[in-house]
């Protein structure tokens, strides 16, 4: 216990002993982060809510295996990513793992003569564009450019090659750029 209340490890240990109240405290502490990650990876609020629930149920079942070797947030983050990937594999919402050639043709619209034409990417516009990406692109983009995972980690998580991860990321960035420009021209 410290000035901020019990640590994640203390709450995890109590939860593992069956203390639902302690687990409730963990849930309230981490709910937003888990939901936000699910939403970014899934692009669908209803599915994100279901996966958040599934993740915390899985967390409750596995909480006894948390030993505090890594930060709880890191451990829970990995568990959340795994739950979403399992969800994809079950086929409820399969990510489009496009081939190297890409299943979704991207029309490259080059920049204008003014390289400052898109100086600031509005946060809401970016989030909106991310939600419109094909799932395979979105998964790699969120894991790499938002969450900061390396291609090697992503390749292991998704069961793809590092080259495919890099290719998906590049196509995701190009598609995002087109989506943001389309949005801007419609506003």
């Amino acid at each position, binding site marked *: 216990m410290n000035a901020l209340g019990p640590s994640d490890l203390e709450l995890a240990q109590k939860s593992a002993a069956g203390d*639902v109240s302690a*687990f*409730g405290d963990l*849930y*309230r502490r981490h*709910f*937003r*982060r888990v*939901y*936000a*990650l699910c*939403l*970014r990876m899934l692009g669908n*609020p209803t599915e994100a*809510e279901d996966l*958040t*629930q599934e993740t*915390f*149920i899985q967390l*409750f079942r596995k909480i006894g295996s948390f030993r505090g070797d890594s930060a709880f947030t890191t451990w829970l983050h990995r568990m959340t990513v795994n739950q979403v990937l399992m969800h994809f594999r079950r086929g409820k919402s399969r990510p489009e793992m496009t081939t190297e050639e890409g299943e979704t043709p991207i029309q*490259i619209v*080059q*920049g*204008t*003569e*003014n*390289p*400052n*034409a*898109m*100086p*600031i*990417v509005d*946060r*809401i516009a*970016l*989030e909106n564009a*991310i939600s419109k990406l094909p799932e395979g692109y979105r998964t790699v*983009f969120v894991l790499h*450019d*938002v*969450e*900061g995972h390396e291609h090697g980690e992503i390749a292991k998580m998704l069961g793809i090659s590092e080259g495919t991860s*890099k290719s998906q*990321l*590049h196509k995701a*960035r*190009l598609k*995002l*750029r087109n989506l*943001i*420009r389309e949005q801007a021209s419609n506003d």
Partner: protein
Amino acid sequence: MDCKESIERLSAFHDGELDEHGRSEVSNHLSDCPPCAGLYADLDNIIVAASALSIEGSISYPDEEALWQRLRLGSGGIIH
């Protein structure tokens, strides 16, 4: 290097995955080609914005307590 080759390598260029020769080729092309330089600037803006996205960001969250009740008591919940 033409524009098509340049565009294919922009992410690798940005992420520091090209060797010195590759970096130099892309860099020289971007210096001579404003449209490709504009595209690169756009990608860079997107990457910077993505890295700055707080994970909890501007998201509309579901009712935390309602989800907790589902979690505790719903099908497959933690209290049986």
